[in-house]
């Protein structure tokens, strides 16, 4: 039933996004890219997919400008879709941008705390996370003003409310603020896809629940792993775990008590997927080699973060098997972001002459 009227408002967008998805680089494209000897070759190989955006690059561009141009393409496509979206899809796409907004706001808060010229900060912000009142953040000169008059006007105000006071902004580490916001955002997004009348009970809710639960679990595991050896206490760590996901609540509780990687492994044991990752990454047995691609240490195979990325891409790919769903927009953005990361990685490997690691990209098509 839910598909009956879907095309009235969203059929065009779904078509466009599916078209974009077909434009993503395939395994064949990637293997061509890895054969390149120079960045110029790479640029040439990317021609069909990124032609217009890479055309203005000088010969042998740096990898960062290459990545910036590739991101430009994503942004212009996203803007086009956003401009055509109506109703709950428009709202859904707004939710998509909140994640980037959090990054931008964190950046601006850091800048304000250090009394930097916030105007130059605006240039560093992610364009997808741009919101109308963002330049106003530059007006605030101290943190209290920022909190009381500016942040309250942003779409993120709800995420600040109740969990962060203006003293917190001053005292807490910016990473903790960022992750608190992100937790609130994920919970809100989860709530949104499962309660909005247009989405509840549809494939959108189904797919998005899977994606968001995975994202929540991934964050919880990563935060736990990364907090070992830092001043982050177990109590405040626990506050950063989203209150949903496949690990919630037992796994989260165990994560919050974990002291080492072994503890994390025990905590995720209940979910077979994550358990497999931990076993495959060779974590738990030895405390070394956590994470992906340890620099020069010769970590064979893929690390945990690689596998998380891989899993994310697989979920995103399978989102396209459903019809009449908003989730494909989310999936497409994620796939495209991974593609940009892959391109940057390959370009970096070529530029730095580290060909032996060039195959470390993630391709699902």
């Amino acid at each position, binding site marked *: 039933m839910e598909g009956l009227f879907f095309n009235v408002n969203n059929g065009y967008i779904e078509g466009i996004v599916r078209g974009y998805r077909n434009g993503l680089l395939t395994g064949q494209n990637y293997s061509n890219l890895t054969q390149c000897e120079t960045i110029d070759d790479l640029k040439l190989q990317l021609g069909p997919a990124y032609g217009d955006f890479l055309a203005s690059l000088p010969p042998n561009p740096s990898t960062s400008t290459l990545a910036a141009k590739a991101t430009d393409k994503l942004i212009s496509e996203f803007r086009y879709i956003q401009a055509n979206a109506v109703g709950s899809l428009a709202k859904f796409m707004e939710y998509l941008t909140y994640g980037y907004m959090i990054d931008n706001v*964190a950046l601006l808060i850091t800048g304000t705390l250090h009394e930097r010229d916030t105007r130059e900060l605006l240039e*560093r912000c992610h364009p997808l996370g741009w919101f109308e009142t963002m330049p106003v953040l530059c007006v605030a000169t101290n943190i209290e003003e920022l909190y009381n008059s500016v942040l309250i006007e942003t779409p993120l105000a709800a995420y600040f409310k109740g969990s962060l006071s203006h003293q917190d902004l001053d005292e807490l580490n910016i990473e903790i603020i960022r992750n608190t916001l992100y937790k609130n955002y994920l919970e809100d997004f989860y709530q949104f896809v499962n309660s909005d009348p247009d989405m509840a009970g549809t494939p959108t809710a189904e797919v998005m629940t899977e994606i968001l639960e995975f994202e929540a679990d991934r964050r919880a595991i*990563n*935060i736990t792993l990364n907090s070992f050896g830092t*001043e982050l206490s177990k109590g405040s760590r626990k506050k950063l775990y989203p209150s949903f996901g496949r690990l919630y609540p037992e796994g989260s509780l165990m994560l919050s008590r974990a002291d080492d990687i072994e503890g994390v492994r025990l905590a995720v044991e209940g979910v077979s997927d994550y358990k497999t990752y931990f076993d495959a990454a060779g974590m738990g047995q030895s405390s070394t080699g956590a*994470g992906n691609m340890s*620099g020069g240490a010769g970590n064979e195979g893929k690390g945990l973060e690689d596998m998380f990325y891989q899993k994310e891409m697989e979920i995103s790919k399978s989102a396209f098997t459903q019809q009449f769903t908003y989730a494909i927009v989310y999936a497409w953005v994620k796939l495209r972001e991974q593609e940009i990361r892959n391109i940057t990685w390959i370009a970096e490997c070529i530029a*730095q002459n580290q060909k032996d690691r060039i195959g470390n990209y993630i391709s699902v098509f």
Partner: protein
Amino acid sequence: MSGAGNREAVFPTRQSLGLMKAKLKGAQTGHDLLKRKSEALTKRFREITRRIDEAKRKMGRVMQIAAFSLAEVTYAVGGNIGYQVQESAKSARFRIRTKQENVSGVFLPAFESYTTEGNSDFGLTGLGKGGQQVQRCRETYARAVETLVELASLQTAFVILDEVIKVVNRRVNAIEHVQNKKQRDTAAQDVEMKLRREAAEKAGDDKENETSGGDLLGDEEDADVIF
């Protein structure tokens, strides 16, 4: 070999001969000492050159690994963390202190690196994702900076030593070729003069003064003296 220019401005008297001999002896001792110093410095200099070569090669490798680990961070975090790291760094974790090393009277500054413990300003960077890469990248770059400090220390020593060696060598050469010769020549002339004077004394007392006066100014007789 000799001449008026190669002679110290002294009268050829017995007393000044003694003085001259003492001076020559002093100069020779000084020359030997300086020569030894120069050799010690040169030895050190060669060693430093070799170590600079090694350090530079190591530098290349380490920097490459470091740059690549940054690429890994970019991949894992999926964005630029540079600004965040810059902002959250408050005090230096990696510091250097200088100490002086005495190599045959030359003070060479040496830089020594050390890390202050318990200082992790951006320990939480990449908490959500990529934190491990960030930490690993940081360690890699700390190693790179260590190499850089080592290289800087060696290069400073290199420049200073180079300068000092030049000065010492100049002095050694000066003593060897100019000062010593002058004194030697003066002493030699005086010895010769003494001998001649003794001969003249034997020949006759009245002629003595003329001969010695003529000898003092004449060049042609001195030319034969070779040491």
